[in-house]
């Protein structure tokens, strides 16, 4: 049986993209898989009794070394903020390419804690900072120093000791450009070094909390239980900064989604599923319920989504356990068809992710296809014709062409870059000033504008001639030729409408990172948890691949 890839006009709608969940293709899981046989080491741990100072952790294989350099600083409670306007953090980190010398550490000590206003060099690959969950950190140190393990109920409500508030890479603030390292086999997957940074930061948080507890009461203090450590991750607070990324990197977005779609297609095409695989699938669905029931949020929007998800997953589980026969032909195709008919978008994508669990032979080759050489597709084939351009638009953007941008609600918002933080923001076009400096992120509106002009242009005219009078549409003409080759490169939705939920864009990206438990704090920012349940560094050589579904707190 041949299954078609899913239609981009359905999958690339924001509500669907905002229902994506982590899977075996997610970057943090593929990072662990790639680095599982690297040598992990704590190279330096120079903290004072309060946990302030420097530490270095590394991954090494053959002659290659990546070192996380950590700086933990004292800050006042009133200085602690997850917002991008913050200037001080509990800890700051950089991933250094190689072994940092004393001079490097001195240089980094001056620059890394400053974050956006510091300067890094081509020897640094990623940069980040994090704040303590003060409530949890204090509780854990207090208990450990008294010889007690922390309260698991409290841990389960938060899920991490620290949360990062930004992770930067690819040339930001002087960091190494991607081209310098892109041929390294071990990082042939997007955001791999960002994942490494976050993973090593997680270990630092455990070491720091143990160190502080010990110094509080050397005689009585015990270490945080390894099983508890495993069930703690690293939090992340993410705002709009992430949203334009998926618009500005169309071929990369395509490669992420296409990999997921190919995996699903191949799984639906499996004629006979063996018992071991079907049991693993059902087991993961069952165990994953803990992730849903321990998913805490105050957001009414998300609560409603979680409730619907839980209801649908429970119904689905009952069905596959009692009424479904995995020995029938193409069982995963039947499951998928049933999901489409009977469950919400959140549940469809949730189960699609879990379907991948038994099939490393399908997902592993796809992981290698998830990067993109974006430069290759940048040039506009200007020798082609207006007719070509119009045909592509009609074929690739049918839903967008139906949007009426004359209506105020479809043109309500605009994206801009804030002057003080150089970060993307969204504002009401009719209430706020600044729309004349709008960023080119209203792709649907501009595609529609382009189409309307094409309708009254001569078919045989070359794109080169067309561009002479329509230079203002050049950015979307480029995209039309990209979407012709890359079907999942474009969000098939209006990114400036009144009802836009920007967190859908954030969630799409974060699901590919491998985030769990999305907790929207508003429609524009959310908190997540990464690596919760993941093996600790010393366990990497032999770990349970389905750790994501086996979280105990």
């Amino acid at each position: 049986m041949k299954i078609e890839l899913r239609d981009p006009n359905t999958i690339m709608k924001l509500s669907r993209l905002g229902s994506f969940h982590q899977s075996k293709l997610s970057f943090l899981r593929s990072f662990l898989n790639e680095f599982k046989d690297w040598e992990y080491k704590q190279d330096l741990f120079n903290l004072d009794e309060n946990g302030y100072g420097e530490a270095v952790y590394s991954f090494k294989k053959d002659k290659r070394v990546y070192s996380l350099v950590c700086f933990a600083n004292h800050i006042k409670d009133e200085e602690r903020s997850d917002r991008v306007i913050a200037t001080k953090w509990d800890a700051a980190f950089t991933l250094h390419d190689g072994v940092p010398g004393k001079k490097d550490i001195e240089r980094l000590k001056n620059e890394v804690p400053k974050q956006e206003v510091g300067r890094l060099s081509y020897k640094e690959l990623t940069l980040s900072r994090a704040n303590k969950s003060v409530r949890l950190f204090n509780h854990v140190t207090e208990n450990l120093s008294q010889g007690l393990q922390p309260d698991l109920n409290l841990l389960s409500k938060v899920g991490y000791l620290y949360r990062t508030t930004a992770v930067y890479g690819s040339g930001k603030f002087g960091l190494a450009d991607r081209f310098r390292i892109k041929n390294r086999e071990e990082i042939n997957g997007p955001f791999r070094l960002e994942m490494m940074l976050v993973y090593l930061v997680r270990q630092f948080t455990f070491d720091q909390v143990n160190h502080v507890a010990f110094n509080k009461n050397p005689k009585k203090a015990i270490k945080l239980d390894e099983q508890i450590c495993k069930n703690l991750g690293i939090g992340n607070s993410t705002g709009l900064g992430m949203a334009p990324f998926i618009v500005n990197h169309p071929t990369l977005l395509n490669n992420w989604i296409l990999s997921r779609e190919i995996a699903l297609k191949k799984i639906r095409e499996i004629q006979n599923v063996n018992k071991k695989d079907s049991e693993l699938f059902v087991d993961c669905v069952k165990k994953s319920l803990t992730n849903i029931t321990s998913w805490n949020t105050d957001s009414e929007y998300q609560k409603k989504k979680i409730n619907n998800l839980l209801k649908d997953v429970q119904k689905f589980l009952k069905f596959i356990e009692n009424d479904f026969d995995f020995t029938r032909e193409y069982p995963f195709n039947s499951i998928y068809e049933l999901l489409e008919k009977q469950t919400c978008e959140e549940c469809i994508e949730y189960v699609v992710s879990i379907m991948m669990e038994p099939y490393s032979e399908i997902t592993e080759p796809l992981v290698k296809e998830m990067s993109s050489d974006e430069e290759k597709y940048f040039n506009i084939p200007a020798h082609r014709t207006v007719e070509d351009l119009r045909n592509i638009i009609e074929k690739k953007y049918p839903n967008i062409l139906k949007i009426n941008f004359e209506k105020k609600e479809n043109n309500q918002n605009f994206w801009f870059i804030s002057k003080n933080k150089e970060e993307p923001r969204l504002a009401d076009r009719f209430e706020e000033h600044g729309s004349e400096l709008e960023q080119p992120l209203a792709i649907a509106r501009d595609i529609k504008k382009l189409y309307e002009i094409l309708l009254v242009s001569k078919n045989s005219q070359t794109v080169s001639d067309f561009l002479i009078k329509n230079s203002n549409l050049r950015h979307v003409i480029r995209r039309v030729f990209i979407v012709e080759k890359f079907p999942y490169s474009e969000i098939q939705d209006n990114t400036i409408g009144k009802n836009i939920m920007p967190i859908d864009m954030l969630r799409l990206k974060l699901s590919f990172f491998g985030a769990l438990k999305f907790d929207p704090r508003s429609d524009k920012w959310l908190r997540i948890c990464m690596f919760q349940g993941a093996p600790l560094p010393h366990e990497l050589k032999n770990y349970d691949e389905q750790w994501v579904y086996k979280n105990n707190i």
Partner: protein
Amino acid sequence: MKSLSEIETTVKRATKASGYSWGVAEETAKCVRLLEAFGLPGIKDINKYFSERKENSFQNLNLILEKNQPSAKSYCPIILGVSFLDQSKSLEFLKKIELNNVAYPSIFLAFVSRASEIIGKKIHINLDKKEIILNLNLNIYSNIANNEFPSVANHLEISFLENIDNFSEEEWKNLYKLSEDTFVEETESLKQDGAGAGLTDND
């Protein structure tokens, strides 16, 4: 040191802020990034051009012909560059293109370098008697001392180089002959058994 990514982002924004469209700003950013990667004065010259643009106006050339002479003002290197890029597939059929009075020709060169990759041909430029070779966007050679490009090129001649060898047949033959010294002379038995296929392929 600024990363190329920082350079590209900043140039894109600065170009848009100077009055160009976002699409043209994207092209310009790629070009300045390219110049900087090649060690040529991208940031320096685009900066000077944008400053000068506040005081003086420049002429936009949208349709490039064999001979191009601006009325009085210099040609804008960005619009000229974008036009060259867009029209490169038709321009390559012209034997030679002449342009007079081009402002900040280093910026224009980056666009021509990209065009060289698009059409798959090396491009030769004579810039006020200095020689420049644009090599399929892999590198830019010039005999301009210290890469000090002028703020205006009075006369530019552009020719597309045919894809021909730049060595003689004799030189090639000599080298090929030497390479044959790595081959093994076949005996009758090696002829029979050395290759995988059978002696007849009529099955």
